[in-house]
């Protein structure tokens, strides 16, 4: 039987499959056994209570959905008092995502969230729908460095940083986060998008812009994980379009140590459990003893580069 456990810095996950922030809550215990998950990841929390964005908050498109929630929540005090205890009933480590408009407040949040039942703090510096313009710190190397430096100074908890796929040069931003003391990188948040209805000429979402979520995006995010993994030493959690065990393998081959899952868990509430079971079977069938053997194991060193080589059809 394969050993599915992976280490993300000081934290050990029993398997590399975790939900993505915002796509999960303890209420999923209604349908699956949360103790099977690699980690529990809470929805991004902000300091003040927030209502979030106007409805509609989701629209289907040709090959995926766009969504714009706007980080609603009851604020950090309520969160620590009422929601952390809900998660504390389960065994997997709790990752708490947080967001803010200012670096100072990000740092203060890091400190205030450093309570015993929180195992990891995830800095969501990349939410594209937090406000109506779609901007965020993870678009910029300097903001990223300053924000993570400030948070690092205020917490000893493992600090994960969620990056944006909308950034042009994700490698530089990833390196800035690493330099500033991040313990792991979460790649990536959603792609800033727009849908306009052709029946009434209006944007389909109440907030106009939304984040695109679709299995179609996996090749883009996978490329980012691959590029970043070659340049940083800290572990990476790959998020984007994972819907099956092979996708977990693909992300790990590209250099991720674990994956996060959003869409697949919406579509099939039991998907994460199925994926964990399938991953175990996948490894066992192939005689893989430790799932960590897959991390960065892509065979890219001896790529055939002669265009005139007579290659087989290759599929």
């Amino acid at each position: 039987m394969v050993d599915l456990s992976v280490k993300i810095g000081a934290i050990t996950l029993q398997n590399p499959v975790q939900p993505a922030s915002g796509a999960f809550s303890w209420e999923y215990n209604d349908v699956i056994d949360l103790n099977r998950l690699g980690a529990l990841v809470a929805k991004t929390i902000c300091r003040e209570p927030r209502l979030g964005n106007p409805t509609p908050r989701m629209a289907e498109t040709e090959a995926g959905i766009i969504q714009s929630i706007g980080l609603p929540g009851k604020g950090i005090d309520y969160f620590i008092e009422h929601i952390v205890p809900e998660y504390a009933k389960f065994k997997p480590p709790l990752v708490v995502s947080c967001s803010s408009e200012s670096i100072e407040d990000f740092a203060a949040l890091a400190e205030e969230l450093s309570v015993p039942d929180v195992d990891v703090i995830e800095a969501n510096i990349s939410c594209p729908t937090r406000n109506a313009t779609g901007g965020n710190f993870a678009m910029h190397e300097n903001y990223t460095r300053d924000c993570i430096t400030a948070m690092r100074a205020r917490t000893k908890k493992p600090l994960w940083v969620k990056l944006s796929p909308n950034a042009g040069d994700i490698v530089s931003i990833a390196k800035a986060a690493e330099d500033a003391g991040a313990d792991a990188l979460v790649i990536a948040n959603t792609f800033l998008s727009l849908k306009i209805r052709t029946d009434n000429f209006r944007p389909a979402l109440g907030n106009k812009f939304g984040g695109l979520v679709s299995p179609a995006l996996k090749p883009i995010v996978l490329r980012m994980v691959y590029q970043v993994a070659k340049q940083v030493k800290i572990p990476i959690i790959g998020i984007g379009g994972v819907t099956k065990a092979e996708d977990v393998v693909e992300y790990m081959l590209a250099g991720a140590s674990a994956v996060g899952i959003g869409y697949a868990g919406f579509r099939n509430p039991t998907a994460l459990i199925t994926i964990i079971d399938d991953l175990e079977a996948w490894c066992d069938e192939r005689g893989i003893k430790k799932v960590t053997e897959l991390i960065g194991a892509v065979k890219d060193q001896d790529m055939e580069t002669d265009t005139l080589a007579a290659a087989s059809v290759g599929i």
Partner: protein
Amino acid sequence: MTIRPVPPDPNHNYTNSALRTGDVDPYPQRQVGEFIGTVVANKWVNKEYKHVILKVHPHALKAYAGQMFHLLCPSPDGAEVWMRRPMSVYRVDKDAGHIEFLYKCEGRGTRGMAMLEPGDDFNVTGPLGHGFVLEPSWRNVVVLGRGVGLATLAPLSQLAAENKIGVTAILSARHPDVVMSRDLFEGLGAKTMTVLDSDGTSAVDNVEKILEGLIAHGKADAFFTCGSNRLLKLMQRLGKKHNIPGQVAMEQIMVCGFGACYVCMRTFEVDGQRLLRRVCRDGPVFNLQEAVGW
């Protein structure tokens, strides 16, 4: 690392095959399951609505009036249907092991659903949310619905019959061809009346008169509605006037169905304060007086 070669699994390569799992859970202790039901029948009720009957895992039979399932509709066209569709349970037949839905065929999901044939698999998640609640003190209640709302209200008749509560159901529709659920209501002893756009009887004035009559005759210990903003407002007004409690089932676009994503928000007014609630988990049935409508 040496990797033992394994022949490719042709059924496990792509999105949908992998996503169409389900039935992995049904632990008895879980409240909700992702079930693979089997289609028993899927027939047209009229030009716009179909009625599907599914044989399901016994745990799915816990569903009661006002609760919903989240349905993974097949594709009508070979491209993927991305999100589940929420549907109120229309009827639960515990003896046969069936759940039923009454649905309007409109967009891609419901058109895909319309293509289901007996014997087909159908992945449904549920039961989800809080349904209607009947107080033991009530003797007679009034149900007022329109369109798809009638599908949501229909199982109230079942619940009321079990609790020996009398039901008057006012069914509003555009024209006689699309009146639905009358048989179901009447079969369970409810009195029904139909109001139509085609003969003007569905006008708010007229419905108000009917409701006032029912109130006067002691037939309205509680109000239930779904499917029309106009009728919701009317029931709110009369409810307030006569101090009649009420419940309304709300709709909103959903993603998760579990209360996690905050997509399905609706506005409510409680003690003069506006706030948002999740239709999927805080509802879909809400206090009639608190709903702001749409």
